[in-house]
Structures are given as C-alpha cells and as structure tokens.
C-alpha cells in the first residue's frame, strides 16, 4: 500500500525534494542565517559567535583590530604585516567590496562563505560547487600551513580553483586567488561551538595568525550605496537600456513627424449668433428677479383684453365695460368674475401662485370665447 503510494507520486516527490534542496542551497549560498544577533562577530560569545578565536589570537600576540564600517576600515593601517578578515560578508555590497580591495592593496584578505556574486566582485573566477561535503576533510595540498590538518565541518561549500586546500573532489573549502583574497567555504572554522572540533582551531589560527596584525572587518549595511542592491537591471540583457533609448528617440521622431502640419489650420470667420427671443426672455427674468407681479399681471390682462376684443369685433381701447359685458354674455360667466379677471379691479396678485392662476384663468377664458 505505502510502496504503491510512493511509486505513484514518485515524480511529485522528486520535484518537491529538488525544490527543498534548492531552497536550502539558496539559503546557504545567500550568506548564511540572517539573524540579528550578529553571527561570527568577534564580540559575540554565543554558539554562532566568533569571540573565542578573536581572544585566542589576541593572546597569541596578534593585534586584532575590529572595525565596523567602511570608513573605519579605511582609517586602519594595512601594510605587509596586516591581514584583513571578513567573517560575515552578507552585508558586503559592490561599493564596499571595491573599497575593501582598494584599501587592502594586495595584502591578504580572508572572506568567509562569500556568495557567487561576491566572488565575482572580489575578482576571483571561482564558482561554487554544489556537491555535498564529507564530514571530515583533509588538507591534501602543498601549503605548509595546513599539511597535516583535518577539518570537521557540518555545513560548507567548496569552491573551484587550481590551488585550493581541503579539497572535496570537485572543489576546495579554502581557495586563494592571485590578488591575495582567500575564500573559506565553511563558518565552522570560526564559530564558538565548532572551533574545537577536529583541527578546526589549528587551521583557523594558522590562517589568521600569519601576520602580526589582523583587521577584523564587520561590514555595515549603512555603508552601501543605493545601486549596490541586486536590481532588475542586472538580470536583464545589457542591451535593453540602449534599446529603450533608441525606442524613445524613435518616438520623438514619430511625434515630430506627426506634429508638423501641412500648413496652418484655417479658421472660419464665425457669424454673430443673436437669438431674437433673447431680449424678451431677459425681460421675463428681470420681472422674476424683482417679483414685479403688478407689471406682469397688467401685461397679461391687457393682452388678453386686446385679443378678446379682436375676437368679438370690438374696438380695442377704452371700452372696458362693453368688453366685460360681451365676454360675460358669450361665456355665460357672471360679469363680476370676468371683470375681476380682465380689469385691474381684480387686484394685484399677492403671490406667485396667484399670478400663475391668473395667467391660466385668462388663457382659459380666451379658449372659451374662441370656442363659443
């Protein structure tokens, strides 16, 4: 049952395993654990600190100078009696690496577990060999310092290179480049809890105690410049930026091509637009603004009277009584009602509502007379 399950999911398990391994490798190659209590710090007495080796070196007469910034590193004197150690290079950027190499000026520099990118920046052509490392590694090299030593390491990486020590088959744990930079592939050589295993302590002391003085450089993130981080740019092909410039230039050319007209735009001399009804509407708005109900009512009554007089064939002006009488007879309405509508005797409307009613009553009266 269980065998068949494994067999059925063989592919998935394989992919999962490879993924896990890749994650583990990335973590290891990415510069080790990123913990806040400063691993491999010369002042860290914890299991992952490196206070022990610093103290022992000091006791052995090596002058250990700890510097925690790039400026501090440049203040120290590095001559032919000096060696520089970078125990935790995870905070080393492009600019700080350049400053380190410039200041070291060919004197030996030891860097622990650098990332592939950092190896490149340090000027070595080694690559990281991802093969697993046996627990015990013998020196197997001509270097007199390490001839009879055997390292015991749990974790580590091997670097390719011509003359390395502690070889593990395809690479070595300790590789020295032509510019005096030495790469060490395991932190177990320096950590407090592992330094006593095997010949680790001896190897570390012989490596670091070679000169009279040791400058222990602990890089600082604050020294990095903005462009030191790994940007998208480093992942893209290097012609992409010039190509974008070319495309931008072509776009400018396109705009220039399309923007230039074939002669100026021709404008039309536009005629004046005056609506004939405009002045009448303005007059209406003026009445409204000052609430001139008296004037409006008079105009409406007057017009209605004139229109009714025309319909009943009466003279227009000055015959109010006769008009009222005739209209009353025509429509069958009482004379008082008609008089109230048509003559000022009906009074001035006291509200907008009354004015609207008067206007509509006049219109209704007009319709009635027209029908009769």
């Amino acid at each position, binding site marked *: 049952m269980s065998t068949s399950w494994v067999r059925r999911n063989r592919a998935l398990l394989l992919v999962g395993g490879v993924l896990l391994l890749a994650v583990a490798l990335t973590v290891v190659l990415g510069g080790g654990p990123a913990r806040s209590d400063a691993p491999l710090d010369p002042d860290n007495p914890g299991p992952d600190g490196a206070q022990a080796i610093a103290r022992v070196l000091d006791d052995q007469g090596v002058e250990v100078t700890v510097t925690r910034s790039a400026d501090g590193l440049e203040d120290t004197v590095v001559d032919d009696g000096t060696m520089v150690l970078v125990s935790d290079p995870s905070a080393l950027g492009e600019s700080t690496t350049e400053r380190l190499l410039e200041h070291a000026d060919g004197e030996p520099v030891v860097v622990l577990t650098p990332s592939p990118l950092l190896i490149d920046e340090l000027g070595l052509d080694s690559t990281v060999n991802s093969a697993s490392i046996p627990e015990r590694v013998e020196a197997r090299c001509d270097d007199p310092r390490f001839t009879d030593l055997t390292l015991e390491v749990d974790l580590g990486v091997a670097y390719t290179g011509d003359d390395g020590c502690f070889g593990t088959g395809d690479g070595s744990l300790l590789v020295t480049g032509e510019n005096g930079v030495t790469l060490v592939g395991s932190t177990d050589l320096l950590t407090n809890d592992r330094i006593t295993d095997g010949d680790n302590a001896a190897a570390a002391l012989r490596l670091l105690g070679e000169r009279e003085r040791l400058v222990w450089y602990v890089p600082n993130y604050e020294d990095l410049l903005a462009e030191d981080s790994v940007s998208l740019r480093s992942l893209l*092909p290097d012609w992409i930026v010039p190509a974008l410039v070319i495309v931008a230039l072509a776009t400018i050319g*396109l705009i220039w091509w399309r923007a230039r007209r*074939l002669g*100026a735009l021709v404008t039309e001399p536009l005629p004046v637009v*005056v609506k004939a009804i405009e002045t009448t509407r303005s007059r209406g708005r003026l009445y409204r603004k000052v609430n001139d109900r008296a004037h409006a009512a008079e105009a409406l009554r007057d017009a209605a009277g004139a229109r009714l007089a025309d319909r009943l064939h009466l003279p227009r002006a000055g015959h109010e009584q006769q008009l009222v009488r005739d209209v009353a007879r025509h429509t069958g309405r009482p004379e008082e009602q008609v008089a109230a509508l048509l003559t000022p005797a009906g009074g001035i409307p006291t509200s907008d509502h009354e004015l*609207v009613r008067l206007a509509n009553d006049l*219109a209704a009266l007009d319709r009635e007379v027209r029908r009769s």
Partner: protein
Amino acid sequence: MVITGRVPLLLLLGLVPVVLRPSGGTVWMWLGVVAFVVLLDWLLASKPASLSFHRPPVGTVRLGYPTSTTLTVVNEGSRGLRGIVRDAWQPTAGAVDNRHRVRLTPGDRVLLTTPLTPVRRGDLRAAGVTVRSYGLLGLAARQQTRVVPGTVRSLPPFESRKHLPSRLARLRELDGRAAVRVRGAGTEFDSLREYVRGDDVRSIDWRASARNRNVVVRTWQPERDRRVVLVLDTSRTSAARVDDVPRLDSAMDAALLLAALAARAGDRIDFVAGDRRIRSRLRSAGSRDVAARLQDTMADLQPVLVEADWSGIAGAVAELGRQRALVVLLTALDPSAVEEGLLPVLPALTRHHRVVLASVNDPALAALTESRDSIDEVYDAAAAEQVLRRRRRTGELLSKLGVDIVDADAEKLPPALADHYLGLKARGLL
C-alpha cells in the same frame, strides 16, 4: 524642417547595432548618423520658393452646389521638385481632396483642381498654398506656405423660387392675358380690339368704332415701368436669428422673390443695403436676370452689430431718383429701433414714395405667451405680451404714417410680400 515617417523607422533600425554592441555610445553614434543623413536630405531638397502659382477667378456658385478651383503651378527653378501641394480654403468653402502630389521637372507646369462645395453664403476665401518639397531619400522636406488669393462667391439660395410660378400666374391675370380683366383708377391704356360678348360696354371706344366696321373696345393693362426700391437693413436687428436663420437671410429671400416678380411685371428694381453706412447698391435692374444680379450683389452682405443710420439710407434711396416708387423696407419691426431710427425719416419717404415695411415675425414669441405652467413661464409670457403690445403699437403708428406693414413668419414672408405687391399693382397704387 519637416521629417517623414521614414525617420522614426530609421531610428528604430538602430536596434540592430545596439544589440550587437550594447552601449550608450552606439546609441549616440546611430543618432548622429541618422541626423547627418536627414540634414543632408533636407539640404538636397529643392526650395519651394522656386514654384510660382497662378489662380484664375473661381466665380460664383449657388450655395450648396459644387464647383472647383484650378491652381496653375510652374517650376521656375533649375532642379526638379517632388512633394505635396495643399490648397487651403476656409472650412465652409468645402475644399475636400485639396492635397496634390506633384513631381515637376524644371520648367514643368501642372494644373491642380480642387473641388469646392460652399456651405455658407458670401465670399469664401483661400487661405494659402503650402508646398512640402521632399529630399532625394524622402527623409526630410522643406515646407513653405504662400498666399495665393482666391475667392468663391456663394450666392444666397433663393428658396422662395417655388412661390414664383403661382405669383406669375396671378400677374398674367392682371396683365389681361387671361380671361379676367381688371379696370380701375391708375390702369393704363393698352390697345384696341374687337368687341366680344361679355366685355364691359363702358369700355367701348365709340370714336374708334365709328371709323371701323366693327365695334371696338379699349383694353387696359396694369401700369408698367414703375420703380421698386428694395431697402435691406443689415444692422443689429438683422443679425437676430429666428429659428436659427438670421433675419437678414429671410429678408434676402423675400427681396429676391419680389425682384423676380416685379421684373416680369415690367417694373424697374433698385436695391440698397446698409446699416451705419451703405453696404451695396444696385441700380435699375429691369432685365430678366435681375434675380441673378441681385443674388450676386447680396452674396457678401453680413449682419453688422451696429445701429442703422436711417437718414443715410433714406438719402441713398433719394439718390436713386425722384420718380415715385414702391419702397420696400426689409427690416425688423423692433419698437425701439423703429422709433429711434426709422420714424424721423419716414415722413420724407412717404411724401414721395409708397412705403412698405416687411418684417420677419418670431413664432417663438407667440409660443412664449402660451406656456404658463410655472412662475418663470408666466413672467416670460408677460414679457412676451409686453413685447407684442409694443410691436402692435409701433405697427399702428407706422400705419398712421401711411406705411404698409407685412409681418409674417420667415417661411411666409416672401409670398406675403409678393401678394402685397400684386395687390398694390391690381389697385393701381404704385
């Protein structure tokens, strides 16, 4: 300096060297190469100034009808020229397809024809001729715009032409060619002819009958060779739009119909248009093509936002002759404008002439008086009633001075004016 679409393409071609040799230097080198080639091409393009242009007059066309303008281009330079010529006109001239590709060897001549379809009355003008001369590689071009004057005259449409046949028929009735005869004061003696049954016995010419074997009657014809003076007001009141048509255009339509009718009736037509000053005039057009000549005279008249100087216009009418005439004032029955401008000069006109005032009535006024639903509408209705009352009073005032008023909607004004003229003619009042 003008570049063509090939320049951005050439710049894009720079991607190849950039991919092969990725660096900023390659970009700038490519840019330099392209700039050099483009500049060289520009220098090699022949100068547009070596072309000479000539445009014959376009003439007149009725509004909305197609015509075309011809541009003669001669290459007077010593080098060939390849490029585009754009003959630009103001938008309402309707110059479509006005870009012409040309390829001219030295001394070559080419005719470029641009179709025009005017959509607006008046003189429509050419804006300029632009030449774009390409270099040998077609990358860059020289460009120049030159002024080549040109005008197309778009005539007023004369939409009331459709009313002409019916009015001419009525005119023939007056003329005595039809069965109905008209007699009355002011008619003129025409000829003698034989009596037929039905003729008015009062028209028998006894003397002629005595000399003749048969009974002879006199025939009469309506008066001929009268003068009609059309006065077109182009002042601020003519700019006002009734149903989005300026009063001036409606008045022109009415004037054209009346002129065409009066010309057929044998009258002479004079025309004056003006506001603060006299804009145009036309004298004694008695011929058959009076409508066409009048259209041409009125084509470029536009409303002007000034008050009319009626004494100046009346002076222009007086200059046309002392003979009694029918003076038709095509203006607006606008109370304030009439009372302040026209009234003082009217007595002088009515003393010598018969005066008719033709005005476009605004149907929106009547509509305004009828909607009375809200307080705003009621105030508007009151204002409209007020305006109508003042118009009526002004009309009554003018009538007392002996002026006839023809006040009708824009559509109905031309036939109304023509009918009024026919009425006057029938009564022999000219």
